[in-house]
């Protein structure tokens, strides 16, 4: 599904290398988790994959089902099936949540040469999916993320994911700022989307999210590289011993 090979990227302004040769492959139907200390490059990896400005890719590749992500505009990556759940979902005053989501769904369909979703079909679908995430009609009408609580913002991200039905989902610290109940709700939403044809990359600091979204593979990232990979037990090891032990072990 997603194949990253020797990916190196720097900050454009400072010419500072953040990703120093990332190798990673996520197969369809699997959930991979990336853990790592602050500043290890986890979020940068998600930004580089989704096409955020400010980074320069100096080497390597990132392919989504054989298509070169790095050659595409952010909207093209989205239409190709890539989805990034933001760590800090952006507030957009004046743009209604529903309007935004409908524009996004139909832009993607248009880009893929599919028919646009009719207003009625869209409404039916969004109501159903919003209900499962406990998102009420008022939240759908309000401007995108404006005045939403931390939990509401993350639920809104999962709603977007559910509506856009991407192939490859990257969750960037989706658990940050959430209490345990909100985290469960978000995890349930994500789990409902797990399917054979879909890959997940879950970026997190803590093991607790992985109690709810059970990963198949866990990677440890440090200083811009994947330094260790293993099964779910690797996350527990981090939880018990911290990163220092693991990092000294691989160093």
């Amino acid at each position, binding site marked *: 599904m997603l194949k990253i090979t020797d990916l190196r990227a720097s900050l454009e302004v400072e010419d500072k290398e953040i990703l120093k040769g990332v190798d990673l492959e996520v197969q369809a139907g699997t959930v991979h988790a990336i853990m790592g200390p602050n500043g290890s490059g986890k979020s940068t990896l998600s930004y580089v994959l989704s096409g955020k400005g400010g980074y320069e890719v100096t080497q390597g590749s990132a392919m989504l089902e054989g298509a070169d992500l790095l050659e595409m505009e952010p909207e093209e*990556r989205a239409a190709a099936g890539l989805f990034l759940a*933001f760590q800090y979902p952006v507030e957009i005053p004046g743009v209604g949540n529903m309007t935004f989501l409908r524009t996004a769904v139909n832009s993607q369909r248009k880009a893929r040469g599919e028919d646009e979703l009719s207003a009625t079909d869209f409404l039916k679908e969004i109501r159903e999916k919003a209900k499962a995430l406990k998102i009420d009609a008022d939240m759908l009408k309000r401007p995108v993320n404006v005045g939403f609580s931390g939990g509401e913002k993350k639920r809104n991200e999962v709603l977007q994911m559910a509506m856009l039905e991407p192939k490859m989902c990257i969750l960037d610290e989706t658990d940050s700022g959430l209490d345990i109940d909100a985290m469960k709700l978000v995890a349930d939403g994500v789990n409902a989307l797990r399917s054979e044809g879909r890959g997940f990359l879950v970026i997190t600091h803590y093991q607790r999210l992985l109690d709810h979204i059970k990963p198949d593979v866990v990677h440890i990232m440090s200083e811009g590289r994947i330094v260790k990979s293993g099964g779910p037990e690797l996350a527990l090891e981090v939880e018990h011993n911290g990163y220092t032990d693991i990092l000294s072990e691989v160093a």
Partner: protein
Amino acid sequence: MALANPKQTATEARIAALTIPESGWTAPARKAALARLRKEGLPDRRDEYWKFTRPDSLVTPEVPKAATFTHDEGPIFGERDRLKIVFVDGVFDADASDDLSMEGIEIGMLAAEQGADIHWARDLYGTLEERGQDPVDRPLAALNTAAATDGVLIRVTGKPSKPVSLIYRHQSDTSDAVLHHVLRVESGAALTVLENGPAAARLNKVMEIDIADGGTLHHVRAQGRDHDRRAVTHIFARLGRESVLKSFTMTANGRLTRNEAIVELTGDDAVVHIAGACVGDGANGGEFHHDDTVFITHNAENCESRQVFKKVLRNGAVGVFQGKILVKAGAQKTDGYQKSQSLLLDGDSQFLAKPELEIYADDVACSHGSTSGAIDETALFYMRARGVPHREATDLLTLAFLGEAIDEIEDRDLGEEILARIESWLARRR
């Protein structure tokens, strides 16, 4: 004899090119306005009040040419039930207009009623314009009172069933229209006035609005899209106790536009909202300069004034905002609000703003904010990451920015119509 200065010379040259009626009920007001004009002199670029906008092409005797602009969109407000009054290059077109009679309103034409003596209009014509000359000179308005060739005289006595729609068509490349409307809203009466169209190659328009206690006037205007047109417009309004004036203007295109609104709140608990949404593109050898100049005087207690102006500028377009709130001694519990923002879509465009507050009462709440900025890149990336293409995302953010001004229109349907126009204007420039 003193030597004529350049300002005097320019003023006399302009006056010489005007025809000023010397008889009829407006004659005394015209004579007085002409004297005001001579005393003040026409504006030039050295005037403080014209620091950001060059008045040259608005004051010359000859009119800079302006080609008419054709487009396939139907005229705005076209689907609406309304009483239409049509002017072509500033001349009333009776055949294209509706019958002027309607329940709750008296409508006359300034040119046609010259011989009649309409007391209410005689008391108003030029009166509010003259009041608005202090403390700032507005010579182009005095010129208008002196030389206006036509306009509507509207007295609202009830609540007419549909809006009055003033339609300004532009046909001649060199037309120079001078229109002067007088509106009197009687106690408890209410009306909606719509205006649309470019009017002429050059338009000088004054609207005097007198709203008695408890009266309401809603005003929504769409200034015509002709690229080369020029316009200077003034609204002079006086508001009585518990009266309401809400005025909104949409401007897209036009080489030069200066819209002034001078409002005096004279009765307690009156409310005035003045808003504007403007989109300007200086591309393709075009020029776009739009100036909103507002002066609100609070001269009574517990009144509310709100100014909301939003401008979207690209390709060297220029936006100007000069807005003042003057709170006179004794105007306690005043609630004054002023917001003026511009969205600059590139580095060539500019926004010049001069917000002012002058307050002589001690129990008031006044605020003003003026900003200019670019598209929010974070929001733009967020939208693109969801699959919305760059240009569509930019348009959505642009409309969201203008939305706050459009929301000032009380009638939701009218607001939607304005929004749709701006949406298609943006879409044509993708």
